[in-house]
């Protein structure tokens, strides 16, 4: 599903965020990406949906080589991947329903299908009753649930989450994790960068530790392994 081969990334300011990464992630896996701030976690994740390009090396998502993917084809890649961000990235002038529907409008889905899928997914994240509210009227946890709803409404095979609980209180974080668990149980691959030791140590999954642009640890049912 995801394969990185000798991926190297150097930013224009000279920082090396990936220094020869090799990794393989299979369909249906749930992977935590851990590591200190500035260790290259975000770059690792951003390269998967082509927000960043590797300086050298190859990244394959479902057989597509991102290194040779044309800019004009990037939107089509992103439609196969759901992305959840730490800062939610909701469109402030669209209400909950419209934010989620946007991901389907982009692929020119019919209005009937859009309505059905959006309502289904809002039910899954428990926000059906707030469909007409705007992001500013929601709590952080609710906004993150909208963001998750948007990422999965198009039923992608892969969901990437960059510190989805980073801005949320512990209770809300657990709620969010439950949603991810449910999505994963349906067969969706999940890659989640996180700083939350409690979550990683409680809901055990594969853990990949990134430090200094290298993968220093890769274990199934691993521990968080850092002091917070």
């Amino acid at each position: 599903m995801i394969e990185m081969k000798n991926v190297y990334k150097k930013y224009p300011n000279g920082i090396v965020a990936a220094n020869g990464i090799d990794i393989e992630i299979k369909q249906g896996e749930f992977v935590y990406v851990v590591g200190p701030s500035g260790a290259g976690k975000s770059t690792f994740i951003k390269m998967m949906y082509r927000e960043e390009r590797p300086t050298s090396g190859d990244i394959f998502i479902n057989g597509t080589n991102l290194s040779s993917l044309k800019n004009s084809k990037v939107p089509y890649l992103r439609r196969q991947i759901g992305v959840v961000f730490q800062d939610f990235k909701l469109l402030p002038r669209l209400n909950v329903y419209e934010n989620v529907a946007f991901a389907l409008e982009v692929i020119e889905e019919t209005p009937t299908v859009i309505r059905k899928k959006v309502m289904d997914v809002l039910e899954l994240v428990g926000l059906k009753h707030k469909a007409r509210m705007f992001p500013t009227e929601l709590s952080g946890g609710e906004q993150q649930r909208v963001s998750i709803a948007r990422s999965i409404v198009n039923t992608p095979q892969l969901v990437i989450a960059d510190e989805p609980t980073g801005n949320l209180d512990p209770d809300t974080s657990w709620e969010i994790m439950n949603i991810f668990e449910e999505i994963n149980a349906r067969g969706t691959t999940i890659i989640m960068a996180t700083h939350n030791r409690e979550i990683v140590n409680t809901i055990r999954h594969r853990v990949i530790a990134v430090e200094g642009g290298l993968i220093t640890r890769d274990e199934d049912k691993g521990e968080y392994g850092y002091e917070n």
Partner: protein
Amino acid sequence: MKTRTAGRHFRDSLKSISRNGWMTFASVSAVTVTLLLVGVFVMIMMNLNKVADDLEKDVEIKVIVELTADEAAITALQDEIKNTSGVAEVQYSPKEDELNKLMLDFGEDLRLFEQQNPLHNVFYAKAANPQDTEKVAKRIDRLDNTFEVKYGEGKIERLFSFLNTSRNVGLVLILALLFTAMFLISNTIRITIVARRRDIEIMKLVGATNWFIRIPFILEGMWLGLLGAIIPITLVTTLYYNIHKVVAPKLAQGNLFELLDFSPFIYQVNALILLMGVLIGVWGSFMSVRKFLRV
């Protein structure tokens, strides 16, 4: 693109207009003020241009016919003048008419001369292009049976050079104003879009293609231009209607020059205002969105 997506873009652009209330208001006001300036200025310049044209059209070539020319020669001369290249129209004024004109100016005393009219028969010719008057006059002068050809030598050169300078100055001013308008309007639109650069980034991350993002913004620019054109069009039309009503009859007495007619002119100005608003709105949006699409 599917039809329903086109409909979606259309609705989205309208939604944006209403949900970005203050931003819309700010852009529309800027567009309004600028287009009003352009409209009023174009109105003034076009009328000054009309005055210049009228002044030019008054320039005549006076062809004084030899006393010895008989009627056949005069007719022949008329044809020759008519066929001279660059001549638009010729009017014959026999010496009796010339005397009548003088009597109008100097009084009935001149009636004495009716018995023995000392005046010449005259042709009044106009050049197709007033600026060519001198050349045309010289061509006519070469014809037989012309005693003298007058065209206000010296005076018209100064008149023409003055009119040409004012036309050029007007043209430069209009171009400068149009440029300023373009700059102002596209800048205000840019500000409203810069405020939403994050939105554009998010849309791209969700998998929207560039055109999917661009089209609603371009439509929104179009609406801003259209909305901004409403007040200028109304004001300019009312203003010109009233000015025309008051000033035109007074100028008509003078017979020297007139204002442009209300009917086709004001529609042309309105079309210009509308077109500018829409084009600049669309162009401004297009250019501003372009920058933020590289995510």
